[in-house]
């Protein structure tokens, strides 16, 4: 990958980084890497291109967490400003840029939410009209044929297919944690399930996703 920045001593993480990268299309990774390279030299147009490529997904991620369009827009803008000011915070050894950016975006949105201290989602489990919380609200409807989705080369399709394959309870707990930014005890309270059950459902859900998306095997052997 074209990345001329000086890197920390590789911690024998080359195979690990490769595994994590499988999920993201190589051509997308190459484009992002080239753009990040230009950002480190102070190229504003390159940052603009990264924004155009990734800001819509970042905004889709920040919205359910912050539940406020303006706040979410500001969160995304700050995210990219921060990337401009400190591009070195991305370490290409740790995996694909797209995945890293989404983790950063999510952390930032959750951080912002906590700082706001307006627990805006106090009524998270209940919609505006008192309708029960529906995790489908956060997700695009899966296409009729999950098998077709799973075989798609589009990462989003594959993630959707993997999410659909989870049990309803696993998916609900995992989506509240990931897309809702709720803590495990908050989820337990919302769903009226024991905390230990929620932990197990989130963990098992993540393991199933990893099995389908990265070839993860619980015993550590990596078949693929």
């Amino acid at each position, binding site marked *: 990958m074209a990345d001329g920045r000086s890197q920390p001593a590789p911690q024998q993480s080359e195979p690990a980084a490769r595994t994590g990268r499988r999920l993201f299309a190589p051509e997308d990774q190459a484009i992002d890497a080239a753009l990040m390279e230009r950002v480190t030299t102070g190229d504003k147009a390159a940052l603009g291109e990264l924004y155009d490529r990734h800001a819509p997904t970042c905004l889709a991620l920040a919205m359910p967490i912050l539940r406020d369009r303006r706040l979410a827009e500001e969160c*995304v803008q700050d995210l990219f400003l921060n990337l401009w000011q400190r591009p070195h915070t991305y370490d290409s050894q740790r995996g694909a840029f797209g995945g890293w950016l989404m983790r950063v975006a999510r952390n930032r949105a959750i951080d912002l939410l906590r700082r706001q201290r307006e627990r805006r989602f106090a009524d998270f489990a209940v919609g505006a009209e008192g309708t029960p919380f529906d995790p489908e609200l956060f997700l695009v409807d899966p296409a009729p044929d999950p098998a077709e989705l799973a075989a798609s080369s589009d990462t989003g399709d594959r993630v959707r297919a993997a999410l659909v394959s989870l049990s309803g309870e696993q998916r609900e707990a995992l989506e509240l944690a990931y897309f809702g930014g709720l803590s495990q005890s908050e989820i337990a309270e919302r769903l009226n399930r024991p905390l230990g059950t929620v932990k197990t459902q989130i963990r098992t859900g993540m393991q199933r996703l990893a099995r389908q998306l990265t070839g993860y095997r619980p015993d550590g052997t990596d078949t693929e």
Partner: protein
Amino acid sequence: MTWQSETLIEMTCAEVEERLPLHALGLLDADEAAAVEAHLPLCPACQSVAVQFEAVAGAMPLALDPIAPDPAMRAQLMDRLDSGAPSAQVTKLPPTAMSPFRRLGLLAAAAVLLLAIGGGFWINRLIDERDEARTTAAMLQEFVSPNAVAMAMAPMAASEYDWGWGTSRLFKNPAGEMMLVVEGCPPTTEERRYPVWVAMGDDRTPLGDIAIGEDGSGWMMVTFPADIPAPEQLGVSMREGEAPLVDLFLGDMTG
């Protein structure tokens, strides 16, 4: 003063692997997260699994329908790029002042990691290999000796997105001296300085700055102010220009 005197929890690979799915989502308690993060740099197998769960966590938003940002926000961002000078929080030190900090910082970081696996032998070997740093290394050994107390400081969300794998710990040696060690920050070509403070309630009292060298680690001796012998919190923050401090690590001293 009471200490949250958890020395670092040692975890087996199985215990770490079991926690990696929740770690990737940022759902672990601070002490569990610290134990996982102490393990990962030393264990290629667990690190490989961690990267897989991180990739899954990073890919999940791609399942969402993208939302086009307001074009005005993009224009405003491009304007802000002009005023946002890169790395506003960087403070340069005279080059002569850097070397010993870095040397000790590196040793401290290594010692922290070695402590995590209980490797007294390796600490000694490390010290032997650093002849010119023998004095400081001896001091370090005292701080990471079995009689010393270590407090893992909780990483704030900001430290995760800015620092990736940064960790911070406060060591107290049997003589009662305290040393703050930060490691795992991204390597840079310039030394950075981050404010360290103690707090009672909302009142924060600065203790000075910790210098983070180009290897991404640093240390400082910590002395509590005479009028605050037992603070409630100890923190490391980041300063960006005139912006308010962003907390990177917080230690609750009242456990």
